[in-house]
């Protein structure tokens, strides 16, 4: 593990809201080309951790290095350069409600890749198709889309610039099982083809068993354990045991195992 290059290094992160502490001395690495899933109970600070890493929230203490650089100490121009290599899928999609779906995806292409409007909208169409959004939805405004469609459109926007790191906040929540499975496959394909590193927050045990390389469990204000799934499952902690060996965990494990045998 030590030989691999870390694209994100978080060291000694403390996040506090008033007197309430969410993270205390939290350490986490994301290695190049891996899919890291972050799991934890509701309110364990998964989204706060994500916001800290992408620079939306400055942690009260600690250092976060992305591609070896401390985002907080960079000047605006350099920071924007680094941020261009992020693709972020927010929990509720966060599509711009005044733009159509195509324009949402075309926006970063026009602003950062310097494409003409026509080129950008053509490429946006490709990204939308890749994310599995039906053609009929491309000219609609986000307010008239279903939850699953918003997820797909937001993924297309996150992928617009072919980022190096993809941050996904509960990507498969609200998708039907077929859509969720296709989503998992898409992430795998993109990771293999583009060498993406994926930081994935999820409650979806099927996703966990199908595509993740490593799992980090967030509990008791820190990363309790981070490692390959098999290793994490065996950790002697009541919460982890309940999580992976509860009825849902067992079902997902069987499903993943039988799918593996068929292949």
């Amino acid at each position, binding site marked *: 593990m030590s030989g691999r290059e870390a694209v994100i290094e978080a060291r000694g992160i403390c996040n506090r809201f008033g007197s309430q502490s969410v993270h205390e001395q939290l350490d986490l690495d994301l290695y190049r080309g891996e899919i890291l899933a972050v799991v934890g109970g509701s309110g364990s600070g998964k989204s706060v951790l994500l916001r800290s890493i992408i620079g939306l929230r400055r942690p009260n203490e600690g250092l976060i290095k992305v591609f070896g650089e401390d985002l907080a100490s960079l000047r605006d121009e350099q920071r924007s350069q680094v941020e261009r290599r992020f693709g972020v899928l927010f929990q509720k999609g966060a599509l711009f409600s005044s733009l159509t779906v195509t324009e949402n995806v075309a926006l970063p292409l026009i602003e950062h890749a310097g494409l003409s409007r026509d080129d950008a*909208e053509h490429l946006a169409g*490709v990204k939308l198709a*890749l994310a599995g959004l039906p053609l009929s939805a491309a000219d609609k405004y986000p307010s*008239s889309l279903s939850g699953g469609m918003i997820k797909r459109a937001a993924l297309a926007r996150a992928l617009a610039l072919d980022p190096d790191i993809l941050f996904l906040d509960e990507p498969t929540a609200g998708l039907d099982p077929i859509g969720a499975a296709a989503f998992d496959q898409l992430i795998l394909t993109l990771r293999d083809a*583009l060498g993406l590193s994926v930081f994935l927050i999820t409650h979806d045990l099927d996703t966990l068993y199908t595509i993740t390389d490593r799992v980090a469990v967030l509990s008791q204000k820190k990363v309790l354990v981070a490692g390959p799934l098999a290793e994490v499952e065996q950790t002697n902690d009541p919460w982890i045991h309940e999580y992976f060996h509860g009825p849902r965990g067992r079902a997902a494990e069987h499903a993943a195992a039988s799918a593996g045998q068929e292949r």
Partner: protein
Amino acid sequence: MEPMTTPSATLDTTCQPACLRIAGDWTLAHYASLRRDSEQLRTQSTSDAIADLSQLGNLDTAGASLLAELLGAERLSHCTEDLPEASRALLKTVYCSVQDYCIPVKAPERNVLLLLLERIGSAVDTLWQDSLQLLGFVGLILETLVRRLFQPHRWRVTPVVAHIEQTGLDAAPIVALLTFLVGAVVAFLGATVLAAFGATIFTVDLVAFSFLREFAVLLTAILMAGRTASAFTAQIGSMKANEEIDAIRTLGLNPMELLVVPRVLALLISLPLLTFVAMICGIVGGAVVCALTLDISPAMFLSLLQSDIGVQHFLVGLAKAPFFAFLIAAIGCLEGFKVSGSAESVGAHTTSAVVQSIFVVIVLDAVAALFCMEMGW
């Protein structure tokens, strides 16, 4: 990172069959030029040419989509054997997803005159529909008000008081300051104009008449339209966008009773009170100017006020306040309910609420002025 190499697609016709040579990095950075090239190549007859991808460098989704469009499924499946596994998978994924996906044709340009007519027509129609909706909404509010009037246990006192604080108490300073200044300006104006006739003493009448009958209530109503109607629209609108209104309905509660009636009642109480404050401040503003520039002492100002100005002017002014209040609150709330999903819609309806309520207030004031003149009040 490897050095970037300029990508290219060239048709080599020297060999038989013709060979399409793909080289370099097919990435987003070169998207614009690559798209031009590949569209040009597609117009030439390249469908029977074999493709050579051995020189292909880096590949991302942008480049893969162009390759997929250029080569098509059949050739992609033949010529990609020598590519790395990952690039092949990417090409396949991109191809599978874009094959039924064509960019829709843009609608043809239409005649400007027709468009203009269409917009005028739809604007008139919207105006008509809006007026109907407002009348319907006013009826709904009155019905709810009357029904709740006889059920004192269902009166919602706390929200009414909270809204009175927001719309009345919090607005008092700005109303007072504004009307004080306008009162002073009117007095200055009167002093200047009336001086030519040697009738500067009538400045007192001018200030008192204008503020009691018109200015106090009009200025307050316009301020409330800007301050309160917009707040009501934004509050109810963001609740609507967040599905909170739907939640209220599914809980078996009535949004009219919960959200609209307290706001209407609060404004019905606070606007007349603010109008009274505005009258006092306007007249004080006039009195200050009179004392400073016309040598009319405050005591004299007051005695002139008492002898010349009948109480009916005060009543006419104050009587208009509840009507204005009701309409401002109704328009503010109605526009809030019209909001649909997006943040932009909240903004559009907030603007519309302010414009409509100022318009309605001024029109109603003009009608009232005519009416009072005919009645001799």
